[in-house]
């Protein structure tokens, strides 16, 4: 019987799911535990699985590079380690990647609080962006010097756009 391995990652945690199809059921082995799943169908937008004892109800979305699962009011993003990530942003979602400050979402730059050459302390406000009618202060993640400012007050910026480049202090 053939099996498929799905290497996933959640944060720093590597997770390997091994799947086998056995007599109309899906056997999933994760961390040494095996569950035998069958579909209990679909209930008003919820995917319902049975592991023989309990029902598991949630929603699942499979992307090329990740799987998103909604269960009990929370959602988990599981990256697929076997799929090469496509280029794109490397900054964390709060817009404070190590070497630059990114727009956390589409909005308007209200204020730029630094200039190229400035030394900024960890937590210092670098740029203020307005989105959805609220102001958001983007702060330096670590003590850094500002190498480049790529936005100005009044600019419309897109999510992920680099606003300020930083060189973290050694």
């Amino acid at each position, binding site marked *: 019987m053939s099996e498929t391995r799905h290497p996933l990652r959640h944060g720093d945690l590597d997770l390997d799911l091994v799947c086998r199809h056995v007599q109309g059921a899906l056997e999933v082995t994760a961390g040494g535990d095996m569950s035998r799943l069958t579909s209990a169908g679909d209930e*008003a937008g919820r995917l319902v699985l049975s592991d023989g004892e309990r029902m598991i109800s949630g929603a699942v*979305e499979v992307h090329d590079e990740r799987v998103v699962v909604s269960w009990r009011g929370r959602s988990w993003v*599981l990256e697929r380690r076997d799929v090469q990530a496509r280029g794109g942003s490397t900054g964390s979602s709060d817009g404070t990647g190590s070497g630059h400050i990114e727009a956390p979402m589409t909005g308007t730059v209200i204020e730029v609080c630094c200039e190229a050459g400035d030394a900024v302390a960890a937590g210092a406000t670098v740029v203020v962006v307005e989105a959805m009618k609220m102001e958001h202060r983007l702060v330096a993640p670590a003590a850094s010097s500002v190498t480049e400012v790529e936005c100005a007050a009044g600019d419309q910026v897109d999510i992920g756009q680099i606003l300020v480049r930083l060189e973290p202090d050694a």
Partner: protein
Amino acid sequence: MSLRRVLVANRGEIACRVMRTLRARGLESAAVFSEADADAPHVRLADRAQLIGPAPAPLSYLDADKVLAAARDMGCDAVHPGYGFLSENAAFAEACADAGMTFIGPPVAAIRAMGDKAQARRAALDAGVSPVPGYAGDDDDGILAREAERIGYPVLVKAALGGGGKGMRLVEGAGGLADAIRAARREAQAAFGDGSLLLERYVHPARHIEVQLLADTHGRAIPVLERECSLQRRHQKVVEECPSSAIDDPLRERLGDAAARLALAVGYIGAGTVEFLVEEDGSFWFLEMNTRLQVEHGVTEMVTGEDLVAWQLRIADGEALDLPTPVTPRGWAVEARVYAEDPSAGFLPQAGTITHLALPTGPGVRVDVGVRGGQEITPHYDPMLMKVLAHGSDRVAATGRLRAALEDLHLLGPKTNVGYLLDVLASDAWTTGQTFTHTLEADGVASTSADGVPPEVLMLAAWGLEMRRRPESTDAARGDVYSAFDRLSGFRIVPRGGDA
């Protein structure tokens, strides 16, 4: 006079909620929408709808002339403003009247009296209701700095025409005042078109308690219980309840009397809310009056069985209030506001397409929703997606129902605060009823989510990944397992390039 066709000058969940009552009362509803909302639920729910402009609110929902022109075009005889947007705009209410349409809200003079917070403070004093100690007057930076010293830090800087937490800043000491004034002015100017500010002493620990009022055209104002909305983040309410665990009957009566006195003093008519800060010894201070329907009105409806929008319409039609007084609560109701925001990244608002949406249901559960699966959440409007409410025989029962409902809400696409709401409802502060306006921000909320990934999540992920492989497979067994696959709506494959 009798209303026939009502323009709902709003969008999202509140527009939908108002339209449902219009339909229940046999009235026609008309919607206005921006270019970003052509497919929005409120447009589909209305009996007729008209495009009024591009996505930015100042060019559409906030443009009184365009809204009124649409109301005329669609033959409306009344306008319901919902909350936010033009709901507390006295000039708009006046323009409606000038155009021969009934504004479903209080008289223009009452909106003016309460809309300017400085004036509202004076009106409260005149009615014998103490406002929060503070300063309202000429607001140049120097005067504000002096007055802040006099009041004593910490102080709140507030937009005089504000509401909904916009244009509001807490200042701990003199060093932070200049920045706070600048930011609050800018936000106030952007949100309300007026940058005037006032100062208030930061009263804490205190609960946010508000009295729902109904006042008719026959000189009667009735308090319809209180709501507690102490749990706030950045002055935005997160969880609300009716009644409050901190209010006993005598205090309820004192608060209700104060609210009704103020309403009568300013000639208030319609539904409105008087907000107070209540300290632990039962002393209370008037904060402001909202001259409109509140976001959280639904908890009052669940506990009283009254439809507050219906009462707004009936009062506008000249009916006299017909409620057993004093209004007594039947059980308990709790509301949680679901926002498109990322609690793990400073609650930043999230935009993006809702790729999957399954709403909870069940006894005592109500979901006021203005979005649907497939809809794009844009940065143009408030990031609140829906409100989930639950009613039960007591606070514990209502909380249990609300938690179960939130756990059964599945929304994929933009991140939401649902997990955070569950943490709030599981917190000691909530369970013990020790809820104060500083609770969420000062004390934070412990995460109830286990570290790592629950096995159930891995099972669902595995199922999804295997389903995705199916088209390349000829394994006969798989056909059996996944025979229902194509009909499954709790599952979705996003093609390459489709997951922006």
